């Protein structure tokens, strides 16, 4: 070895000197440091949070959309009378709204349940979409990614084709079959996607979803081919709609949607950690695989319930979270709750358009959301490509 002067190495000498000077100084400062830790300085940080003002604004928007949905329809209801009627339903308040019995029935058995159902379905689809995008770290993921739609479609088709059309059912078997098919499809996807290699990516899961969806769709097409008379009914279900009389469907999905949406909303912080990828999330103490399973489970259950009563309404799970992401940033602590609120408002308004645009005929609501959603989807795609 030869001793040669190297200019770059000379700087290291300075660092050695400073390090040695620093060592004794540390001892003296230790006390001060300890005191400082016990009494932390008031943080002037402003981490991303859902500010109350924003939440209030969003809630106001939802109330506005709901009122619009209740007031607009083929039978004109006087806004003031409707307002009094709504107030009158509050406990301990007795007012005469002036609505006739028929008008009150239209309000309570047609308009309000339809708006509530639209709100529940929209909130569920949007919040599930946001959660899927979080755990799969893919901006174009939505609740249908792992086969919910294909499973529900097959379930509905089987019910229409093979179940006896008797009056004996307490409620229509189609939603139940659709729900079962949707859950089954996602369970199959998860089982297949995980049984392969212990891959650290979500790609195998997504590919398994594609395979399962194709398989279920193939079976569905075959069954429809064999039972051509079912086509119309299945088609009507797939296109989706919120046409409902009374509260039965609301009551049917409320427990699933309520529990699922709540579970997803609680995962906002963890979804932000998951943005770092499984490896780094685990190095921060987060069991990434378990979080993904919990989120996918909750999102699937809620989506399956929503889809079972409303049909396959597309794009809500993509456009709503993305609009929020574009406007307010990437933290799921904001995206999840606002997706629920704006998803509800969006679907209520889309349904309003669906039933009034060509009244008395109804446009399938899936057509409306896709009509708005597809162009937006392309916009997101272009933007994502720019970032990626």
């Amino acid at each position: 070895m030869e001793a040669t002067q190297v200019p770059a190495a000379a700087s290291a000498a300075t660092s050695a000197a400073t390090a040695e000077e620093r060592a004794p100084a540390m001892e003296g400062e230790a006390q001060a440091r300890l005191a400082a830790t016990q009494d932390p300085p008031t943080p002037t940080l402003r981490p991303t949070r859902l500010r109350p003002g924003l939440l209030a604004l969003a809630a106001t928007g939802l109330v506005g959309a709901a009122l619009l949905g209740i007031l607009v329809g083929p039978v004109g209801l006087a806004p003031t009378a409707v307002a009094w009627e709504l107030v009158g339903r509050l406990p301990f308040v007795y007012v005469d709204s002036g609505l006739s019995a028929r008008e009150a029935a239209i309000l309570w058995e047609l308009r309000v349940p339809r708006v509530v159902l639209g709100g529940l379905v929209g909130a569920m689809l949007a919040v599930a979409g946001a959660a899927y995008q979080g755990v799969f770290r893919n901006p174009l993921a939505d609740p249908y990614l792992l086969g919910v739609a294909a499973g529900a479609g097959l379930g509905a088709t089987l019910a229409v084709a093979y179940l006896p059309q008797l009056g004996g059912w307490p409620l229509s078997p189609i939603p139940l079959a659709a729900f079962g098919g949707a859950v089954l499809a996602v369970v199959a996807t998860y089982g297949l996607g995980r049984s392969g290699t212990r891959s650290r990516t979500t790609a195998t899961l997504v590919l398994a979803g594609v395979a399962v969806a194709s398989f279920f769709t193939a079976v569905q097409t075959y069954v429809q081919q064999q039972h051509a008379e079912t086509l119309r009914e299945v088609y009507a279900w797939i296109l989706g709609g919120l046409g409902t009389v009374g509260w039965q469907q609301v009551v049917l999905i409320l427990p699933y949607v309520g529990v699922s949406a709540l579970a997803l909303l609680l995962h906002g912080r963890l979804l932000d950690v998951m943005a770092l990828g499984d490896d780094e999330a685990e190095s921060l103490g987060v069991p990434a695989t378990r979080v993904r399973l919990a989120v996918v489970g909750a999102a699937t259950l809620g989506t399956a319930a929503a889809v079972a009563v409303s049909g396959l309404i597309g794009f809500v799970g993509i456009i709503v979270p993305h609009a929020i992401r574009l406007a307010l940033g990437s933290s799921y602590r904001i995206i999840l709750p606002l997706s629920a609120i704006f998803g509800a408002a969006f679907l209520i308004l889309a349904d309003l358009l669906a039933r009034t645009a060509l009244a008395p005929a109804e446009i399938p609501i899936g057509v409306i959301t896709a009509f708005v959603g597809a162009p937006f989807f392309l916009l997101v795609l272009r933007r994502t490509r720019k970032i990626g």
Partner: protein
Amino acid sequence: MNAAVDALRTERGGPAAPAAELDRLSIELRDVSVAYDRRLALRGLSARVPGGGWLALIGPNGAGKTTLLRAIAGLVPLSGEVRLGEMPVSALSRRRLAQLVAYVPQRPQIPGAMLVTDYVLLGRTPYIPYLGTERRRDLAAVARAIERLELDALAERPLGSLSGGEVQRAVLARALAQEAPILLLDEPTAALDVGHQQQLLELIDELRLERGLTVVSAMHDLTLAGQFAAELLLLAAGRVVAAGSARDVLTEATIGRHYGASVRVVEDPEGRLAVLATRTNGRAGTRVGRRPTVEPRGR
């Protein structure tokens, strides 16, 4: 170079935010083997890092440096034993381990739209209950880390708008907010220019001394490895082939053998070593233990 850094620090107001010195924690590996799909990435490796020390892992691509870091961080299944102080890693929960070991991968995921503050706050994850939210002391730790790494002005900027050096500082701030006594760094200087490389390593050394951190870093730059780390561990094909001080490990013969490289090792007046690659017109040294093939990186 260093004068400039010191000047910058003085200008910013002398010694930065206070931080408690953590309990120094040693790392011990006993006969550790790790296999990926039946290919052995580490073969019965043993090593020890004293609490508060700095060990640099060097070795050619695919030698097992990253795997060794991941083994200490509890991210790969392994045979043998890793101990932090007296505690075997296998007996610690994932959360507890994350409170003791901060791991900075070679290419951390940088969510471009995330704000620096939110990103640093992720370092507090091991202290926050599963469905809970951060508390005051978490925010205080984040504030200290941001101040210490002089990120105040960037705190509300999205990560995507930062330069490479600034991103690296944000990543280090996240690791610092984790307040773990052990810091694992995989090629921390890989994406930085020569000035930022030195500044970053000086900073890591300061943090090590301030907080009593035990640092293990995988490094490609042999000169920097030799000048900053107290001890070097040369890996080849998953085994330790040389260990000790820079003077023991960084010899022309050893590097020639294991990297298949032709180098000259020179000494500056203070006795520090520098490794210079030299051109040999196609007669580079022959590697042992492994053919010079391209290995998948990042493991």
